[in-house]
């Protein structure tokens, strides 16, 4: 909490900041300080959004993007968590894949676009593949370090109370103890997914990214801004919903 400010004051300053920014943007364009061909008027955005909604384009592109996003995030998160936890729990597996992980990790997800096109063609699977790569690494490292840093005392307790089997210790100690770290990774992956989704669609796969490319080629900057705000809103919604789930799952934390 910021010292010396009430909640109402904070909200007031936030509203003032945002309104001030929009006003400055609007006035800069109207006064000719900024060229209208390069930047849209903020006041025109709601109308353009309304037209996109009326035409059904907004729903089509958002549905497409959401489908790549969901598949990519689901695939990347599941594999990332599974491999990360296995690496932390199985020393032989960890040693066997450590160099491979070090080699592949620095390659950005977008560098896989050529292979995505060769392997899948220009279709939603390629986008989902690219999204999954970025999400995979975030979840991999988050899960690995979360499991790796579990207090070994918990494992001793499990063994002292008859939970010797690997599966019992995995479900009763490793997963719940590492849950805060794993969930942080998942949340970061959700964000990373949105960053990649647009880029993955820029090469022609239907979705928000493609719509933005089309609009920019016609200098329809207002449409571009509509979809930039759409991504921001979708990300915020997903993040909020995830936070609700996260809080529920981690209600045991002090």
């Amino acid at each position, binding site marked *: 909490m910021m010292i010396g400010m009430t909640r109402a004051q904070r909200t007031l300053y936030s509203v003032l900041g945002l309104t001030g920014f929009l006003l400055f943007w609007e006035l800069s364009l109207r006064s000719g300080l900024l060229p209208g061909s390069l930047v849209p008027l903020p006041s025109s955005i709601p109308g353009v959004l309304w037209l996109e909604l009326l035409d059904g384009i907004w729903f089509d592109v958002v549905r497409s993007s959401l489908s790549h996003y969901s598949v990519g995030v689901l695939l990347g998160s599941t594999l990332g968590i599974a491999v990360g936890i296995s690496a932390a729990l199985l020393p032989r597996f960890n040693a066997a894949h450590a160099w491979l992980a070090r080699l592949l990790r620095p390659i950005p997800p977008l560098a896989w676009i050529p292979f995505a096109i060769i392997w899948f063609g220009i279709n939603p699977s390629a986008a989902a593949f690219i999204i999954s790569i970025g999400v995979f690494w975030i979840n991999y490292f988050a899960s690995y370090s979360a499991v790796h840093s579990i207090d070994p*005392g*918990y494992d*001793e*307790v*499990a*063994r*002292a*109370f*008859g*939970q010797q089997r690997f599966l*019992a210790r995995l479900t*009763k*100690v490793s997963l*719940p*103890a590492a*849950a805060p770290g794993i969930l942080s990774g998942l949340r970061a992956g959700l964000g990373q997914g949105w960053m990649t989704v647009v880029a993955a669609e820029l090469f022609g796969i239907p979705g928000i990214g493609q719509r933005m490319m089309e609009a920019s080629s016609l200098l329809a900057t207002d449409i571009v801004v509509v979809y930039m705000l759409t991504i921001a809103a979708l990300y915020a919604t997903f993040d909020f919903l995830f936070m609700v789930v996260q809080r529920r799952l981690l*209600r*045991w*934390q*002090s």
Partner: protein
Amino acid sequence: MTDTSMTMHPVLSARNVSLGFDGTTVLAGVDLTLHPQEFVAVVGASGVGKSTLLRALAGLLAPQSGRVDIPAAITPDTRAWSMVFQAPRLFPWRRVRGNVELGLEGLSLSKAERRRRALEPLALVGLDEFAERWPHTLSGGQQQRVGIARALAVQPRVLFMDEPFSALDAITRRRLQQELVELRRRTEAAIVFITHDIEEAVLLADRVMVLGNGEMDQPARVVETLEVDMPLDDRRDHPEFAPLVQRVETIIGNH
């Protein structure tokens, strides 16, 4: 220790147990036989290997040589042994009852029986009303009581206690010591109790096993085992209490 317990089969027998790491022996030649309801306290200077010995007796660590036998649990809904740790080490992601149920999972018990078996020891330590609370809402003393309930829930034949009261404040410690005296009367379990507090050892145990270092570079060993021949009630006021504490202190000091 009752006379009948001597005629029973031992619930733990350790023969010539040696412990160490990386080829170095730190503790050698430990023999220990425990019968039901016996209480042995193990004392010794810090770092002498008390906790390591406890883990070897429980089978959590493999001894370098020698052997430890703990007969299997009598019934499929109990366990042969359980442990109370120095820190309560409750799973923060489980409620109090869930923590006490840990050792019961995997035994031949229905969910309802497991619940009942968890609530019994919680009532014994006075925390049955806290069953649905999260561990972080409990005080240190309450958490350690849950740790004791968790260990009692499996109705062990041997209960290992690794300095269970050392992290508690003096008042809570004293209260839990008194509760353990009461608890001894209600459990069949034999207890191996590690402590660095000599008064605590003499207060609670039937026997006090003193570990000490031998000559330079020699591994630690059991230097003496003393019988505590006093009634459990009000031991602190017993005329033999202070001299016995003094004697153990002298033995530790000489090693």
